[in-house]
């Protein structure tokens, strides 16, 4: 039995732990607090404890579980809400009350619940790791596919249909090294990526229904996104919108060191949300991990890994999974805090020198992959990581290390948010390195001028920022009419297209077709306005025409009416503007 030597916050030093190995999980003190060995020197082990260590004394016992920090991957995981080390928060509440008590470790899923398992292989079939042996209908939306665990290969000896508890054996496989059992669920160490066969290039977009994202800065399924945003820039709302609307089959939402009330908002709004395609509650395909800022810091560090491991597991079944981490800065700060307690030599701004490596390792777990299996099955994990740079200055280490490895950047801008331009994605600073690769898909699936519409719009917006500088100097009225016209179109792009209300019942989700039509109508307006201006009509005259209002109300139009609305709008636009132009 090991003994505690020293306690300083979440870091405990202990000696004489039997069979202690790096990253093994240990139980600390009389309360049996969960901890992880993060350093060893001589006979001493350094342990980070996932709970508050108040009142723990030197001399109390430490015992190793002999296993690294793992998650339980089994039916029952979906719709769960966990803390950073996969403790179900609802069960904790039932056992310990409204405030999280120490030393309570309920199982992540209900171990007594039986799930109906329907096999898809039979005796004598050859199976290898990742092969699906059967299915449990976990929720009405998601089939939980039961896979052969890594390391087992051979012929099926026995497989049974029936009702099984999460860790019960559903069958056996005859391998070279003897008979091995296949359980319904499996455990996996969180710090070790689940293996895949190969990674594929990103080709299909993650459709989010958010105009600025899909049309301007799209992300591929299996891609990585960094969302830095100073506080008050509406970052959380963007993440909520993605969780609600992105077309991934499974969503893992990691609330890492964020506000309690915000997690509550998710917990109360998600069960009420309905998936736009299936009409089922969104919770049926969601896993929430909530480690709020005041919960123990070491569990916050683990929460990101817990989340990504669960995401990888569903990817391995062949699903497209989106993982949102809000915020990875809080995770990095947890690293820093623990590193500081360990008295490690600090790198930049007190962060440990290995920060960059850890960030890169995390994002590398994203990807569109051919998963481990003998048939060809694809799955993807898309990571959308929020960063919260102090003071909004992205030159700090966490933002910089993140930008180095992510391929999409949605630059949330506080000054846009202050003007209530939401989502406050700055169109000039943001980028998507997937734009080119995904344009093929968009051009094929929506319309062949999708990408060129985007390019035209971007040119107008860039031109706007140049013209605004000029206008700052000479005043708006001094600009020639054709430049005023550009500003007018840019304004429309910003207000009538890029701005999207997450709280408006209709506008909250915008189909690709609608996005396309909206953008087309603004570009059409550009054409007729240029014609009118060339005929001597002023922009301020055009501004008073009724079609302008109709255009700005396009957002509010329901999906089934968009085509007729579009043709009416174009007709009115041409009649009104041309009518005015021809009068001149």
């Amino acid at each position: 039995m090991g003994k505690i030597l020293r306690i300083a916050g979440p870091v405990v030093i202990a000696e004489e732990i039997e069979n202690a190995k790096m990253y093994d999980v240990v139980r600390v003190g009389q309360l049996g607090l969960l901890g992880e060995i993060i350093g060893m020197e001589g006979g001493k082990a350094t342990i980070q404890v996932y709970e508050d260590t108040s009142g723990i004394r030197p001399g109390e016992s430490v015992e190793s579980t002999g296993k690294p920090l793992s998650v339980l991957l089994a039916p029952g995981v979906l719709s769960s809400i966990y803390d950073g080390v996969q403790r179900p928060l609802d069960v904790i509440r039932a056992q310990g009350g409204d405030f999280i008590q120490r030393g309570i470790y309920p199982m992540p899923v209900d171990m007594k619940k039986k799930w109906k398992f329907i096999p898809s292989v039979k005796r004598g079939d050859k199976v290898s790791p990742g092969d699906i042996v059967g299915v449990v209908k976990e929720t009405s939306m998601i089939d939980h596919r039961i896979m052969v665990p890594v390391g087992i290969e051979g012929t099926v000896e026995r497989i049974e249909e029936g009702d099984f508890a999460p860790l019960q054996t559903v069958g056996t496989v005859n391998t070279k090294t003897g008979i091995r059992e296949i359980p319904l669920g499996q455990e996996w160490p969180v710090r070790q990526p689940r293996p895949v066969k190969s990674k594929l290039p990103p080709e299909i977009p993650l459709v989010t229904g958010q105009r600025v994202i899909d049309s301007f800065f799209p992300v591929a399924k299996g891609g990585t996104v960094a969302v830095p945003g100073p506080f008050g820039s509406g970052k959380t709302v963007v993440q909520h919108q993605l969780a609600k609307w992105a077309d991934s089959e499974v969503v893992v939402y990691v609330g890492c060191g964020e506000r309690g009330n915000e997690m509550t908002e998710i917990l109360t709004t998600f069960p009420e949300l309905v998936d736009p395609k299936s009409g089922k509650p969104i919770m049926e395909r969601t896993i929430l991990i909530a480690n709020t800022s005041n919960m123990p810091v070491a569990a916050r560090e683990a929460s990101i890994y817990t989340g990504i491991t669960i995401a990888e597991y569903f990817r391995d079944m062949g699903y497209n999974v989106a993982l949102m981490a809000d915020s990875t800065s809080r995770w990095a700060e947890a690293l820093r805090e623990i590193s500081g307690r360990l008295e490690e030599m600090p790198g930049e701004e007190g962060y440990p020198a290995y920060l960059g490596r850890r960030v890169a390792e995390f994002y590398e777990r994203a990807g569109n992959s051919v998963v481990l299996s003998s048939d060809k099955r694809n799955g993807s994990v898309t990571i959308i990581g929020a960063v919260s740079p102090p003071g909004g200055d992205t030159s700090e280490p966490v933002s910089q290390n993140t930008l180095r490895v992510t391929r999409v950047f949605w630059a949330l801008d506080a000054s846009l948010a202050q003007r209530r331009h939401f989502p406050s994605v700055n169109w000039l600073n943001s980028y998507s390195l997937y734009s080119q690769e995904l344009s093929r898909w968009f051009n094929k699936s929506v319309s062949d001028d999708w990408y060129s519409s985007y390019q035209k719009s971007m040119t107008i917006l860039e031109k706007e920022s140049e013209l605004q500088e000029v206008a700052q100097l000479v005043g708006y009225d001094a600009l020639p009419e054709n430049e005023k016209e550009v500003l007018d179109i840019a304004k429309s792009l910003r207000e009538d297209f890029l701005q999207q209300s997450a709280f408006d019942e209709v506008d909250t989700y915008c189909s690709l077709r609608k996005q396309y039509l909206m953008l087309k109508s603004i570009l059409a307006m550009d054409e007729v306005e240029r014609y009118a201006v060339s005929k001597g009509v002023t922009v301020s005259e055009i501004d008073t025409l009724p079609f302008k209002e109709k255009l700005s109300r396009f957002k509010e139009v329901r999906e089934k009416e968009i085509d007729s609305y579009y043709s009416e709008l174009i007709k009115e636009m041409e009649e009104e503007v041309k009518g005015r132009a021809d009068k001149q």
Partner: protein
Amino acid sequence: MTADIRYKTVSRIAGPLLFVEKVDNIGYNEMVEITLGNGEVRTGQVLDTRKGIAVVQIFGSTTGLDTGSTSVRFRGDIARIPVSDEMIGRVFNGLGEPLDGMSSILSNEKVEIVGNAINPYSREEPSEFIQTGISTIDGMNTLVRGQKLPIFSGSGLPHNKIAAQIARQAKVLSSSEGFSIIFGAMGITSEEANFFIDEFRKTGALMRSVLFLNLASSPSMERIILPRVALTAAEYLAYQKEMHVLVILSDMTNYAEALREISAAREEVPGRRGYPGYMYTDLSTIYERAGKIRGKNGSITQLPILSMPSDDMTHPIPDLTGYITEGQVFVSRELHRKGIYPPINVLPSLSRLMNQGIGKGRTREDHRGVADQLYSAYGRGTDLKSLSAIVGTEALGKDDRQYLEFANLFEEKYVNQDFYEDRTIEKTMDIGWEVLSTLPEREMKRVKREFIEKYGKWRK
């Protein structure tokens, strides 16, 4: 088990830290009683413990301490305070000891001051609109019950007046109960503290209040523990006694400085501007104690005040606070100079829980739209102010000139109000429409058509 042993083995005193040697196994965060040579007693807490050595942080000054005659007794338990109804109407110091000359609180219920985190699953989403009677808050940065909304201010600005006005006027429309007030003063002057006490007395709120005072002259280390003591009392009143508690903490900047002082004394690796790397986590254990719990009638709403050093919102204290709290109310020096009260600049202000508290059935159906329209119009107006300073008002277009006038009107009519003016939400909304009506109707892009027709004040 070690409760009665007194150690005279203080080997080193460094800043507020005391190194005690040859001790038995001491619990982490355990409370400590330090007796000076002259019999004076001070309190401390264990910050680091290992076999034979405990590092103790003293809540108080180290004046008069020595390594010879000072004796240390470990209480064998972490910090707790007794809680009961009798705390209401009383004044305490940062450790929860009476300052009003009356007896200590006698209660069998002793609660740990380092509260456990509320299980996110147990929380209830705050959604009850609190009418503060201040337009800039009610109309544009709505406060709801269970929210934590700090006031970002600077030295010499009337943040105390604003906080006092909120405390006086705050009410939930659907209920007749008032708020009980917990006031935690950290390092503020006695003048400031007296201002609050007078205000509470005048409005009768003192009868429903508990005051925790650590004035500028009191030991700075006590500031570390004061907000936790205050919030423990708040939690007791909110969740055991089902009261609605408004916690005012002033000034969080002084708290953060005390935290930095300890961190420096412990020779920890400093983070930004010398503040410790764990300041975010530390602040969150204070702010996150605001909220509502499902199935309990009470609530804790926090209104921390912090003065931004040199009005810099990116300074670590306001920055980290903003990441934890649900928005902020920004007090502007510029508006204050113009003589506007309350000088709240709505542009950098924000209430993240606003949407939950407003709209049909809560405030008014047009609330969101009007607030957005006011924001965007005022944003444009203030931009034009700086532009017109360069090119002159004449060079602006007709629309722009209207926005410029709008910005001024907004500040005079909407923002500006009297210290004793308690505006209803209806009144606030009406003033909003009134100032918006100086702009052309077609500019109202954020408001639904039907609301323009129903509430707009354009002459037909």
